[in-house]
């Protein structure tokens, strides 16, 4: 390595630092993780894209499949349907979430933590579950189907309600964040100028959260357009893009057309992703470090109004869950309402029985453990590594990409890539490993961002100091970086665990008879008409995810109190 290239004093080529053993080790590691992302993400997507240009014999046909697609009215109709669902869901969810976020940040109503916790519940259940609840509530034998005034729940109405339930927490988190960074001084100034409450709302509050609202809108739109659980369960004959992929692939084994629909579905998701990234940057710029946090003033009428509103939203969410639990326990709805556990005999149903529940826990555990290691190590190497600029840039891009890839698309891409007999990785197909890999990849971006944020908050000089003290990087990583980032590491692992429990979309194409999953079992039991056991399994997922969340909370509290002595400094 030593040679003319960095002879001092030579003009022309700039000097390059001689690599230390640390540099070499870090480059090796980052290369390994980058290769992982290429294999788990870039290659499959590429193969899927090329499949969309092939016929079923593997011959290249150019845009033939696309032409066929756009000449099939029922398929094109799905685009309209998807956009319609996305648009309506976005309007409703963002409105509901905004008012709730407003109540949680700008009122003095009691019970805020409780309402916030309840609003987060939908994250803990598969998106199939609200659909099942809606059948019990508004189906032909629904408990309160009179409320629909003769309208049919199977179709757009049902899908939208289910999607609102499913997307609400995602929108809420974003808008609460946007509302919390408000600067009290702006409000004081507006009040001093004697602006009326509505005027303040429209001139100060709304402009302040506009990026948050845009961001929330795009997140909700993407989620509702790419979600497949709700339309599958409650959509009836109202076809959308996500169900079309499933139908083409699972129903008709028409993989090429599935690839075409996938490419079409990538468009709105990709667009939403780009807009969200732009808006995120602006939102950060809006953040003023010197902002004074806003303390809401008590206002009896406003506070009770917000309280009533929050209660209604909570009833909606808890009601959905309650109905599912009720359905799971009722022996034979609607003719025999006595309670029992007969619907928990999953072994007598489609979907893999109790094994699938334990498979899910196994899969979620592996995903949490290995995913956290891969994601955190990857983020660390990108942040702290030296050299390999282009590879780090590519890595960063690959890490952000999964957010724009709907799970169904990823799953289908995996079939193409991993099930090809010529792929040396073919042995992974139909294994637990491929489920874990696909789930880690599917939820990579948010985990990566969490890790990156935590790492950025650390003093960037730690590594320099450690190097001057002649300490290998891994020692500082293990003794300082990991302990300081423990809360973020826990967050990542819990995020991965919960999502691995609830996800259906990517894994629905990848499970095998040995590796059936609980969430897929919900889908398959519903498909076979065993809706009560489907509800029962859905609730098992909820209880598991909720249990893990509670465990996480207790663990975090424990760590917080044990490390309080030094953690103050990190917070500052």
């Amino acid at each position: 390595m030593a040679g003319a290239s960095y002879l001092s004093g030579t003009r022309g080529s700039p000097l390059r630092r001689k690599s230390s053993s640390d540099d070499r080790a870090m480059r090796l590691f980052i290369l390994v993780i980058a290769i992982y992302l290429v294999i788990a993400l870039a290659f499959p997507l590429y193969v899927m894209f090329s499949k969309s240009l092939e016929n079923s014999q593997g011959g290249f046909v150019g845009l033939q499949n696309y032409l066929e697609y756009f000449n099939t009215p029922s398929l094109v109709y799905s685009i309209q349907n998807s956009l319609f669902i996305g648009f309506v869901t976005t309007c409703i969810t963002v409105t509901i979430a905004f008012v709730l976020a407003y109540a949680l940040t700008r009122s003095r109503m009691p019970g805020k933590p409780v309402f916030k916790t309840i609003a987060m519940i939908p994250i803990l259940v598969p998106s199939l579950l609200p659909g099942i609840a809606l059948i019990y509530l508004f189906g032909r034998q629904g408990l309160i189907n009179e409320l629909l005034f003769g309208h049919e729940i199977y179709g757009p109405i049902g899908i939208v309600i289910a999607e609102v339930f499913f997307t609400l927490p995602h929108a809420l988190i974003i808008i609460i964040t946007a509302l919390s960074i408000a600067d009290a001084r702006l409000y004081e100034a507006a009040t001093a100028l004697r602006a009326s409450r509505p005027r303040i709302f429209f001139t100060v509050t709304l402009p302040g959260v506009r990026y948050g609202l845009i961001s929330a809108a795009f997140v909700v739109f993407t989620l509702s357009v790419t979600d497949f659980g709700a339309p599958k369960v409650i959509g009836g004959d109202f076809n959308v893009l996500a169900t079309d992929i499933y139908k083409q692939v699972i129903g008709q084994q028409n993989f090429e057309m599935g690839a075409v629909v996938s490419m079409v579905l990538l468009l709105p998701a990709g667009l939403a992703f780009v807009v969200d990234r732009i808006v995120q940057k602006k939102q950060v710029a809006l953040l003023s470090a010197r902002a004074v946090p806003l303390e809401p003033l008590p206002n009896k009428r406003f506070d009770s109004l917000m309280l009533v509103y929050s209660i209604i939203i909570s009833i909606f969410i808890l009601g959905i869950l309650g109905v599912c639990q009720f359905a799971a326990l009722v022996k034979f709805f609607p003719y025999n309402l006595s309670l029992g556990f007969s619907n928990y005999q999953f072994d007598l149903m489609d979907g893999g029985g109790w094994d699938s529940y334990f498979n899910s826990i196994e899969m979620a555990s592996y995903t949490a453990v290995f995913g956290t290691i891969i994601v955190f190590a990857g983020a660390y190497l990108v942040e702290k590594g030296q050299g390999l600029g282009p590879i780090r840039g590519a890595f960063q891009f690959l890490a952000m990409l999964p957010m724009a890839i709907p799970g169904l698309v990823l799953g289908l891409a995996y079939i193409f890539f991993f099930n090809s007999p010529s792929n040396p990785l073919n042995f992974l197909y139909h294994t637990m490993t491929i489920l874990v890999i696909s789930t880690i990849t599917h939820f990579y971006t948010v985990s990566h961002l969490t890790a990156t944020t935590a790492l950025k908050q650390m003093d960037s000089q730690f590594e320099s100091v450690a190097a001057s003290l002649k300490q290998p990087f891994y020692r500082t990583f293990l003794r300082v970086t990991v302990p300081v980032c423990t809360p973020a590491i826990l967050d990542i692992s819990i995020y991965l665990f919960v999502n691995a429990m609830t996800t259906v979309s990517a894994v629905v194409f990848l499970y095998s008879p040995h590796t059936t999953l609980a969430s897929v079992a919900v889908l398959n039991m519903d498909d076979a008409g065993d809706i009560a056991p489907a509800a029962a399994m859905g609730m098992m997922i909820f209880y598991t995810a909720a249990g893990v969340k509670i465990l996480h909370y207790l663990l975090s509290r424990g760590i917080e109190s044990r490390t309080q002595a030094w953690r103050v400094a990190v917070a500052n």
Partner: protein
Amino acid sequence: MKNSFFGVRSGLAAALAFGLSHATFAATELTVYTAVEAEDLKKYAARFNEDHPDIKINWVRDSTGIVTAKLLAEKENPRADVIWGLAATSLLLMKGEGMLHAYAPNGLDGLDSKFRDKSNPPSWTGMDAWVAAVCVNTVESDKHNLPMPASWKDLTKPVYKGHVAMPNPNSSGTGFLDVSSWLQMFGEEGGWAFMDQLHQNIDHYTHSGSKPCKQAARGEVAIGVSFAFRGAKSKAAGAPLEVIIPSEGIGWDMEATAIVAGTKKLDAAKTLVDWSVSEKANKMYNEGYAVIGIQRLAKPVEHFPENIPQAMIDNDFEWAAQNRKRILAEWQKRYDSKSEPKS
């Protein structure tokens, strides 16, 4: 697999267990594709393992159409060793594609002549007949003042509009045997005309053949076109159901068994197929199905309509298999708009 999850302590052990957690315990594992009702799978495997504990069955279950499509899609790179419990029409299709390994199992002679492939040695052997039937929810039909239907043609009456569900033949074997039987009974033209009328009354087409009956059992629809076995099961579970055998006659298909050509586990596959035609196996089929491969062993099944053998039409499986693709395409073109996703 539960043990491997809870037993894992260190990350290293987890890494080793990663992907290896499903290590083989039995001497041989067979991947068996099936469309047999989910609730029977454990029983089938358990009974088989009473005699052959050294062969482990890994089931891949889905509805008939899906399993068929899956097998066809995997033609170049088959993942199944044995097919146990798939419609004979589907197996005929695969026989035509050269995907089956012809084999004359021990005990072939005991089977009813209808219950085997005509070639010698046969490519497939039958297990039981599964027959179409109509599940009517008595509570719902009372509520809506629906008369009890007695024939297929009855179902086209305007009074039933929006009250009927049936399986999509593209994904469901039951759906296909309905359609192919109507085409055989009413003739090609009459059959489509009947279906056009029926389509007017259909609320939705389901992906699964049993779902219409399960929905009728729950009252989600009043009438579900399904199959007799499912109706009997739901009735036994306490559903207010009447299982109707339409007067024109009913379509039926056989659940049958075959070895997938190219399997690396031919010996174990043969053992399984031998067992699948045994008397013990036939008695097991008889627990759910009234018409089985060794008919002399058959005993009546609870809640099953009694006139089934007489109502079964003279089904031309070869015709159905040969025309399957055309029929499905035509059906898709005419009626797909009312299908659930996944059809």
